[in-house]
């Protein structure tokens, strides 16, 4: 049994659990020993290689396993100098290399071992799996899947109506690595359209503030830019947590940001007021537990101001 409900989990995770094989995530080659190896030596192997279990192999066959627990017992009871073959656990639970990761997870759930040796079809030892291997492999794969999804979303930039273009950017909570990327793209698109510097600036201010609000305060969301001939509509929506008091949130100087967000130069309580100030139209809706959507319109300045001449 997999220790979480696959029925209601995002299908992408369930799919990964079945698609990934044990051989994709296992650690290999494995440090093994033979039954004549003294427990003291195995203890050294564990310490030097930072592993918590060593499979014991005889004539290419996996015959036992020594764990940190076995070493502690040997130290405690004074047989650390004896060969491991006498004391190893011979009752082995193994995984096969072409089993899906879901079976690995259910093994950890069922047997409470810290690691499982992995054998191939010919019963040879080919690797070892810890729950940490599973976690890190899943995270890596989920990240990859997410990037694919984002690329798909971003490629849906087809015109939605004559002269209208829509662009969508995924924005993640606390992702300071990519923070500002959506707004930078918006500015480039506006530059390409040849709108005035003032319009570019106003749109940048609104977009950046809204994007940073998603990064700093939400559980994640997206920025949607809808261009038409004379305006861009910026919609920032997130999945929560929602704003309990909108009037307060719109007050200059009010912020719920914590100390470390503030230490990065955010959380001055200027975001929403700044956004409203530069926008031709501004609306905000928020439901606690559901999320917040801010929609602003920037109308392109009709008579573009002459390019600021360099001083």
């Amino acid at each position, binding site marked *: 049994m997999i220790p979480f409900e696959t029925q209601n989990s995002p299908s992408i995770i369930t799919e990964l659990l079945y698609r990934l094989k044990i051989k994709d995530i296992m650690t290999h080659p494995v440090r093994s020993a033979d039954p004549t190896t003294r427990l003291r030596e195995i203890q050294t192997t564990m310490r030097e290689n930072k592993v918590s279990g060593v499979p014991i192999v005889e004539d290419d066959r996996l015959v036992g396993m020594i764990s940190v627990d076995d070493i502690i017992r040997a130290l405690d009871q004074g047989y650390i100098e004896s060969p491991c073959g006498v004391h190893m656990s011979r009752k082995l639970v193994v995984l096969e290399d072409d089993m899906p990761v879901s079976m690995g997870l259910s093994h950890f759930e069922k047997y409470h071992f810290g690691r499982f040796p992995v054998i191939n079809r010919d019963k040879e030892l080919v690797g070892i799996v810890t729950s940490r291997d599973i976690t890190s492999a899943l995270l890596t794969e989920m990240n990859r899947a997410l990037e694919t999804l984002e690329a798909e979303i971003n490629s849906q930039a087809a015109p939605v109506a004559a002269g209208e273009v829509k662009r969508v950017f995924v924005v993640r909570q606390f992702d300071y690595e990519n923070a500002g990327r959506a707004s*930078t793209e918006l*500015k480039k698109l506006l530059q390409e359209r040849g709108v005035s510097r003032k319009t570019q600036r106003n749109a940048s201010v609104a977009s950046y503030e809204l994007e940073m609000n998603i990064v700093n305060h939400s559980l994640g969301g997206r920025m949607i830019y809808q261009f038409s001939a004379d305006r861009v509509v910026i919609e920032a929506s997130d999945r929560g947590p929602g704003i309990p008091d909108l009037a307060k949130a719109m007050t200059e100087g009010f912020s719920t940001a914590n100390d470390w967000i503030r230490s990065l*130069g955010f959380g001055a309580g200027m975001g929403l007021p700044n956004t409203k100030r530069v926008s031709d139209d501004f609306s905000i809706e928020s439901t606690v537990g559901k999320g917040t959507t801010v929609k602003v319109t920037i109308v392109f300045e009709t008579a573009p101001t002459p390019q600021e001449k360099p001083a």
Partner: protein
Amino acid sequence: MTIADLEARLGYASLVAYTDAELAGAYTSDLLSDVIAHAPENSVLITLQAHKNTVACASLAGVLALVLTGKAEVPADLLDAARQENLAVFRTADNQFTASWKIAGLLGLGLGPIPGSKENL
């Protein structure tokens, strides 16, 4: 005053290669909301906010150069981002007040004689 003038006259350490350009103004702030809203275009930003997000914000505001004050390490990802956005980055041991005062002078924004004093600003 150009970015290269600023480097030459103040001796601030340049951390990335940059394209020289005329500076039209300067702004001093550590609040990125303040920077995005008020920093003038084609300006130099004096800040102690030495992290990557400063670059994104500054470049959106049309800032051309950063002067990082304070003793914090300048992270490599800030410099990478600055190269990408073609933003000059300088570092100085001057504090924000002193750096702002010097740069104001270079920009010809000094106030002239202080009433009742022989000092020139």
